């Protein structure tokens, strides 16, 4: 977690996993869990067409939180 002591905002990274269907354009984004890797087959089936799901990407996004000045 990066924090700039001069800033009033504390930045935190949240890792997300992108899940896609092999057959259609279904996409879902959820929180990363241990064991995830890109191109891993995801458990379950596509809610649209019952196709196989796989992990298409993993990335981190900033979650800005206001930090109260002491």
């Amino acid at each position, binding site marked *: *977690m*990066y924090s700039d002591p001069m800033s009033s905002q504390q930045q935190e*990274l949240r*890792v*997300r996993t*992108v899940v896609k269907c092999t057959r259609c354009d279904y996409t879902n984004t959820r929180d*990363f869990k*241990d*064991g*995830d*890797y*890109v*191109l*891993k087959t995801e458990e379950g089936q596509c809610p649209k067409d019952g196709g196989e799901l796989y992990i298409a*990407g*993993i*990335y*981190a*996004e900033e979650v800005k939180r206001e930090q109260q000045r002491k």
Partner: protein
Amino acid sequence: MLIVALAQTSSSSSAAVILNYVFYLIFIGLFFVLSMPGIGQRFQMSFAIRDIEGKLSMLEKFANDSKVSTENLLKEKGAKDPKGLTERLAEIFTIDPVNVEPTDIIPRMRLLLRTTENKVRDLITMSAPGIDNISRSKIEMSAEVTNALNMVYKIVRHYLITAKKLNNIFLVYQLQMVVPQLVKQAEAYVKAQKTFIKGIPIGDSFGPMVASRFLMKAETKREVSRDTVAGEVYFEGRKLTVIKAKGPMATVGTPGEAVAKVVEENQGKVARIITVDAALRLEGEKTGSIAEGTGVAMGDPGPEKIEIERIAVKYGIPIDALISKMSIEEAITEMRKEIYDAVEPMVEMVKQLIRERTREGDHIVIVGVGNTIGVAQ
């Protein structure tokens, strides 16, 4: 000064007069002492040294925390004597090859680097027999971070102690200028270690991620060189051989050796070599912005990059470089959304380049350069 003091205190009480005399004496005494040669410099040095010592204690903390992380990872995987092995890995070093005579410096460099890699790998597998490749690669990366942080801490400490012994203010000033940057880099390394342990793709995994988009469609993939895979796909009448490190291990593989092998297998009948990699951005540039160039996009000390250049020269194959820009911290920590969002545009850029520069029936080699942690094929 004494006349001024007298004038100011002539109408005050005796206690105030004495106090005023004392303050003036202290002020004059300090002024006299500080104006003597060498004294002011000693004061400046002591302030600078205190500043450096504060940052050195941060570097020490980073190095120790990193050792604890590596030790815990070894314990988790059932390694024998995790503490002893961590200490050993933290102190491993590689001596540069002689460069006064540079004739065969590349094979010598390759031998030295491979020997160190094999040594670390063997130490880990001997300590934890039966460990899987992914966990072993995570421990290797973690050990590399521990080693780097340990060395940075020791080198800064060495120069600080030397500066104190020699009373050398210029050495202290140089350290004071450089140490904040080292602390920032060390902080990035500590974050990177946490990312490696969790197996999350980093910014440097951009190249392998682009390659994985092509390799998804490959029916078979084979290991062409150490920790490196290749697969064949077809695109608009062209045959593409896509190469990347073998994921989701934390490894960069041996892409140079792989490209040379693939090109030789095809008797040099390759129309183009396209390398995709992460590159350092300049301040002011946007993270994830992509650019096109010429040459081998690879942050390698020499042996792998030169293999691609030599095979390209041998058969007259043009080399294209496609990069995504990011800072050093973004390259070694979790892949940011802006970098992930650049993957699809980069895939399109590769396809566009193939359409523009090659014809149907051509064979193109695409290399996704980078650490493939968290990215399979």
